[in-house]
Each structure stands twice: as structure tokens, then as C-alpha cells.
């Protein structure tokens, strides 16, 4: 079952989002897909305070690496579920990283009450793009809605990752991961969301 894994060495994927966006489920999907493919994988999650509307961060490291966490400047892929959080997590990335970012904002409370301002989307995009050119910037909520359910935007983003070709994971491993991770009644809708993200990615992220 085990494959030759030296070929791609290790890939470090950092996930960031806001409580309730399903980042941990997405983390799990990537981990299960790697396991199904027979590649070593380790993941780190932070539970706790994050649930009350705070930032949720997690990571998946696949291939030849031991550490479950990712130091600054060492994430090969950033999966950002929210555009402000994409910029906040930019220090995790390096110049060759791939960033997959959802553009649908979730406004923090300090912004909602007028104490601070949410940066313009274009400004966020500019600041990220200036450092990391490999950026897929998409409205995953919109894609998920078209695919059947807004709640599956996390799976859309996983689909985008799968379609990017950055991970040595075949389609059947992703399918296996969806089945293993999700309750049977929501596999269908999530498969559609995954495919929507996958197609988006294959079309060159446009």
C-alpha cells in the first residue's frame, strides 16, 4: 500500500478561518485522503477558546516530516477560509507557497461596532499577491451555493486544493476521504461542492 514518498518529500498545509467555518473538517478531509493514499500524515488542531467566534488554526503535514505544526515561513500551502485571516496568516508562507483563499468576509466584532475598519478586499488581495504570486482568490461561499449548499464552502476549498495538483493524492483517495469523514446524508452535497472547487482549480483558478 505504501508508496514511494521521497519523490515529493513533504508538503505543509496551514489552515486558518473563523470558528464555525468548518476548517477542522477540511483539515480532516486532507488527512484522510493522505491516509487513503498510503502517505504519512500528521495534523495539529487547536480546540478551545477558538470556538467563540475567534480564529481557528490547524495544519496538515504530509510526507517525510515529523512535526505536526508549521513554523513561520514554512507553509507550502495556505488554506484561508476568510480573506482577513488570509493576510493574518501570510507570515506562515514563503514566496513559492500556494494560497487558496475564500473572499467572503466575516467581519470581526471590533469592525462591526465601528472601532476598527475592515480592509478593502482589493487591498488584502494586493498585499498578499505582492509577496506570494501563487494565489487562488475565490468566493467559495458562492461556488458552494451553486453546488447546492453554502455550508459546504469548506469542501469547495478542499476541492480547489485537490485540483491544484500540489498534492500527490489521487481522485479515489479524495472520494474515500469524503466517505470516511462525512455522515452519509451529506456526502452527496459535499461531493458536488468538492467537484466545483476541483473544476475551478483545473480551469486555472478563474
Amino acid at each position, binding site marked *: 500500500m505504501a508508496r514511494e514518498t521521497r519523490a515529493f518529500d513533504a508538503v505543509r498545509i496551514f489552515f486558518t478561518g473563523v470558528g464555525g467555518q468548518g476548517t477542522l473538517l477540511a483539515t480532516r478531509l486532507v488527512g484522510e485522503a493522505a491516509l487513503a493514499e498510503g502517505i504519512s500524515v*500528521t495534523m495539529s488542531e487547536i480546540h478551545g477558546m477558538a470556538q467563540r467566534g*475567534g480564529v481557528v488554526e490547524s495544519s496538515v503535514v504530509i510526507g517525510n516530516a515529523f512535526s505536526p505544526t508549521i513554523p513561520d*515561513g514554512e507553509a507550502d500551502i495556505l488554506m484561508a477560509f476568510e480573506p482577513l485571516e488570509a493576510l493574518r496568516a501570510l507570515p506562515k508562507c514563503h514566496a513559492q507557497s500556494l494560497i487558496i483563499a475564500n473572499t467572503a468576509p466575516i467581519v470581526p466584532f*471590533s469592525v462591526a*461596532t465601528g472601532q476598527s475598519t475592515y480592509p478593502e478586499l482589493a487591498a488584502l488581495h494586493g498585499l498578499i499577491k505582492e509577496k506570494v504570486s501563487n494565489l487562488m482568490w475565490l468566493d467559495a461561499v458562492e461556488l458552494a451555493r451553486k453546488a447546492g449548499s453554502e*455550508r459546504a464552502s469548506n469542501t469547495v476549498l478542499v476541492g480547489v486544493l485537490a485540483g491544484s495538483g500540489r498534492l500527490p493524492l489521487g481522485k479515489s483517495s479524495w472520494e474515500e476521504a469524503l466517505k470516511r469523514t462525512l455522515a452519509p446524508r451529506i456526502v452527496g452535497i459535499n461531493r458536488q461542492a468538492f467537484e466545483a472547487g476541483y473544476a475551478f482549480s483545473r480551469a486555472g483558478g478563474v
Partner: protein
Amino acid sequence: MHELLQPGSERKQLLLGNEAIVRGALEGGVRFVAAYPGTPSSEIIDRFYQLAPEAQIYVEYSVNEKVSMETVAAAALSGVKSLCAMKHVGLNVAADAFMTLAYVGVKAGMVIVVADDPFLHSSQNEQDNRFYAKMAGVPMLEPATPEEAKAMTLEALALSEKYQMPCMLRTTTRVNHCRGPVALGDLPGNGSPPRGTFTKDPFNLVVIPMVGRKLRLALLEKLSRLQAEAEQSPLNFTVGEGKWGIITSGVSYLYVRDAVRDLGLEQRVKVLKLGFTFPQPRAVMRNFLRGLTRVLVVEELEPFLEETVRIVAQESGLRVLVGGKGDELIPKAFELDAAKVKRAMSNFFGVSYQSPEVFSIPQLPQRPPNLCPGCPHRATYYSVRKIFGDDAIYPTDIGCYTLGILPPLRMADFLICMGSSVATAGGFSKVLDRPVVAFIGDSTFFHAGLTGLVNAVSHDHRFLLVVLDNGTTAMTGHQPHPAVELTPQGKVQPKVNLENIIRGCGVARLATVNPLQVKKTQDVLQDLREHMHEPGVSVLISKSPCPLFENRMLSRKQKVVFEVDASCDLCKKCLEEVGCPAFVWEQPAAGASRIRINAALCSGCSVCAQMCKSIKPRRLDDSKGGNQ
């Protein structure tokens, strides 16, 4: 079938470190589990609780960590394999039991899981509990991965049985909350509730001084045998080769392995990975040090291993340079990661390391966690501030309600540990001429508040204690507590009545309110405030269920949301005094500013509508259910 009760198989499962501990305990025959929740240990007791009926084991959410350890100790003493788990500070609470349980010991395997939290991801401090193992003289194992966590739980049980004393499994957040592949072993198939046996033996089991002296010597003797056990243990092993060395344990080992490889030092650095870390394997350390020129000790928090390594080097007269904690090397505070270890190795061994460029970003709006929309704690805080204002001192406690520290509520002035609200309120009231109003959650009250209240009553401390009774232990994942009324089966009579207990303590004044009824709550608070100059403790039970918990337990659907109508005069009191996260202040580039309630976040609690006549309910059709 519960995921963790699947039959053994070669196909690995992705398990959380905490789940791997549960599985290891089940494979090892554990039948009795008790714990008080606490991040990062909570999933251990939560998973056991979920699978208990199916596995026919006894599982309880104990009232605090000391109680959990004592309960489990009795089971283990009666020959039932047992486990308790707690977060690091939980061991402070259980320390009295822990220290002497080491003397008395057990008959069947007993594992004490202690989860440290370097970086204080969700804790009040980052104490290094390895020193507790050393202080008590209890053997300790330290896993690095979920797979090791499972294997070491089994090993801890075996050691505990062999030496007839509890064994500590010490983890850190990055082990508890790491998810990795774990192979499942077979489960012993005993499907009946645990039964034990007890043989009277007071002169070994009742620790009067005479018995304690004897047991103290017996413990020292056990420790010398455990020392030999640690020296032989396969949990301590070496990888790599070279003239330089690294000694490490726990998750730091993983950072070390990546660092050695990234720096290309596989042929030059030999790594000693310690899994059996108390008693510390001194002979293993000595053999490792021999022939090495430089050794770096890589561990999080305190120099627990490092101090022993230095002693061993000195005792053996070895000319090896030992490094560890220090500004340029391994920091004491917070977590390590592979980059920090690479930096330390490069400084210590004098090899080059180019740290990656780290992109800088501008200052961004923060996103701190906040009380949920509709949280009854917010309503209580709003009313207490209305009546007691800025002058009062507000000692607080640990739970969701600690988030009341944030503006605009700012209802937290002092906190050290669970239960501290009550006794510190008493102390303040004796030396300050200001009103003192303390806050404590219901779960925290049972955990450590009750004794403080008895003390306050008996010494005429003068303060108001507000018990925030949301019917659950919300912060750590909505675990039940003694007064829980909502269960998956519906509403039940609580086992312990909070009001009766508090009345029984002899408080001078006691009232109960529903904080979501703002006017009534403020009337009661006003009345209590007017009596504050009279001696004695006043208690207000502010009772309203956590809406997240209630919705889940009763599958309740929300019926209304609230909206701001055109009569709003933008006074902004809602934003400045209540601070519900559903509120949005909109300042469009063109057109007038306005305040809006985000319908997707509004929970329909109606607190805002009671303070402002411009806020009106709107009935919902059935489409806005709760979250999936």
C-alpha cells in the same frame, strides 16, 4: 458502534492524541474512568462518556480533579483498571491526593493523564507537571505522537500493575490535539459492568504517621526498582550517529528530527529520545553522553531533563559541553517548533542555518473570542454594571463568562484560578470600602466555589456572589455537572439543587433571577445593593441555560429574530453597553449610517429589545434552523 470500539485492525485510523489514549486504555482493559474536563484533556473523558453504555464501563464527570482521582483510586485499589485525566492545573487541585496515593498505591492498573499546555492556548499558566511526578515519586511516560500515546497508555497500565502504584502519562497540547495514524489492537471482550474486591488492610491503607513512615520507605524501594525499569525501557531509544548529541522527549522529539534533517546533520548528531522520563534513566544518559563532545537538551518549559543531564555529566567526570535553556538556545516560555530548534542547534553546534524570510503584515483588526449572541452571561453583566457601576470590584472566575473581560462589558477585575472569585471577594471586602461583586459559573461553583462560600459566611465577608447558572460546563464543551437539568433525553430534575445548597451554607440573602428578564433582574440587584451595608454574604443565582447547549439538547428551533427599525436615533447604547456580536454599525460611503442586527447571528434572546424601543421582533418561518 462507537468509532473507538471497532475491532482491532492493521488499517490505521486517524486518531486525535486524546482518542488514542482512550483506545489504549480500552485495549488495556480499563473499566473505570473519572475526570473533570479541561483543555487540552477534555476529549478523553468526553469520548469515554460517549462510549460507556456500549462498552459497559463506568464513566463519570467528577466535580473536580481531586474528587476524580480519589474515586478512581478506590476503584483501582479494588482491582478495577482505571484512568483519570486532567489538564495541567487540575493536578494542583488533585495534588493532595496524588502525593499520598503514591505511598498507598493501587492493586490494578491506574493511569493519571496530565495534559500540559505550553503557550497557554487555553489556560491560565504553563506549569511543567513533570516536576509533580518527581515530587511524588510516581513513574511518568511522555508520548510524542498519537501512536505513542496509545502505546504508552498500555505501558503505563502495565507498569502500574507491576509496581502497584499509579503511573502518570504526561502530554502536551500538541500531543493531545495532534491527529495521526494509529493501528488498532484487539479489545478485551468483557461486557459486564466493573466489579472489584476489597481486602481490609488498614495498616497499609490508612495513612496515619506510623503507616506513612513505612509506606515512605516502601515507595523509595519501589523507585529504585523503577529506576532499573527505566534504564531497560524500549521507550528510551537512540537514533542517528555522530559526535554531537541531542536529548529530548515528547513532541520536541519531532521538531528535533525535522531540524536534524533540514540542517543535514544526520551523520553528525545522535538523538536520545526519552519516553520514560521519571525515574530519569541516568545510566542511559551516561552511556549516551560518553564519547560525545556537545549535547543539547531540547525540551519545552523547564530544564527538567537538562538538570539531570548536567548532574550525570558532572558525576561521571565527562568532558562534554551541555546546552539547554538559554537566550540563544532553548527558550523556557511557550512552545517550541522546528524552526526554534534549528536556530538553537545552529547556535550550539556552530552550523549555518538560514532562517526563512518571514513576511510582515500591517496591523489588522483583532478577532478575539467573544460571548455568543444570546449568551445569558452578557445579560447578567449588563444588568450588574447598570446597578453597581464602575466603582465596584468584580473578582471573576474561569469559564465562558471570563470573556466578560472584553470591552464593552469590562466585567472582570481579578482572577487566579478556579474558585478564586469567592475567597478573593471575601479578602477584598475586608480591606476595601468599595462594593464587591464576584462572578462564578455553576460548574466552577461546584468545582471550587462551595468551600469558599462556607468560609465567607462563617467570617462575615461582605460581598455579592453572582452564580452564573447556565446549566452546563460550557467553556470546555458543554459537559454535565451536578445540577444539570438538560439531557439528550429532555429536561430532568437536577440531582443536586443549587439553590438549596447555597441556602444551606447560611448566606444572608439569596435570590434567583432569569437574566434575560432585564427589568426584573435589575430590580432584584437594586434591592441587594441596598442591603450591602448589612453584614453577610448575598448570593444571586442568575439562571438561564446556555442557548447553544439548550438548542442541542432539546433540538429547539429559533422562533424570532430582532431588527432595528427606522426610529433608531443612533445613540449607540446597544453597541457601547451590551456588545452583542450580532450588531453591526454600518457607515456606507454614501448615505446615512445605521445600526443593523445580523439576522444570521441573532439568537432571539430579546435582551436588546428590552433596553431599546427601536428594536422589534420578527417571526421566523421554519427555514432558519440551527447550524448543521
